């Protein structure tokens, strides 16, 4: 089982990359991989409805604290934790496959 971190930096309104990243995360999780979606920049606008399939597939979803603060977002979707950007560096150090969308 490999450790994947998919960084989503776009909202669904600005790029199809967001949906592609979500689909990839779900596919990997269904294959038994350990997957984290890390929302950064406008990716933190992701809605609970949009994230639900990923969460149901076992994907962990984190949102960059700084990006949330920049955008004045105080309420996050259920089961989405705020995280310092250190998480990404921690995973790089640990050898995870980190992919930026």
């Amino acid at each position, binding site marked *: 089982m490999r450790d994947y971190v998919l960084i989503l*930096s776009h909202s669904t309104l600005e*790029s199809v990359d967001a949906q592609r990243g979500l689909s990839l995360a779900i596919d990997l999780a269904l294959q038994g991989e350990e997957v984290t979606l890390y929302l*950064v*920049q406008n990716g933190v606008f992701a809605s609970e409805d949009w994230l639900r399939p990923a969460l149901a597939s076992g994907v962990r979803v984190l949102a960059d604290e700084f990006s949330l603060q920049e955008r004045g977002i105080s309420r996050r979707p259920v089961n989405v934790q705020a995280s310092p*950007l*250190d998480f*990404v560096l921690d995973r*790089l*150090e640990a050898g995870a496959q980190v992919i*930026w969308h």
Partner: protein
Amino acid sequence: MKSRRTLTFVLMDAPYESARTTTAMRLLNLAALRGHEINVFAYEGAVYLTGRQQTQHPNPVHANNDTEENHPLPKEWVQALLNCAEANGGTLDWANCGLCVDERGASETIEGVRRGTPADLLDFLNRSDNALVIPTR
């Protein structure tokens, strides 16, 4: 204390064009604070990040002189990263892709960064424990 890693970051975005540059700088800063051996391969518009001739300017709309305006300059961010890496026992090898430098006339850079080639990117990746490519749109 975490053990030292060799990490490569690949950047493409020109200064001021995208929030990706800000996030990249945040990651590089974290890596520098942790004392890692950091490689940066900057290509396409990212070769402008280290431009030596970036300067402050006044803003007449805000009635600010250049000091008051204090516009952020990416070259200062990169210099701060170089200093931070050294201060924390790590290294930062910043290479601007020479092909992209030539195409853009971006050869005048701050001290401490260098002109590279795609072969440097391959070397970085071969020597790294991990790598992150931050793509442009």
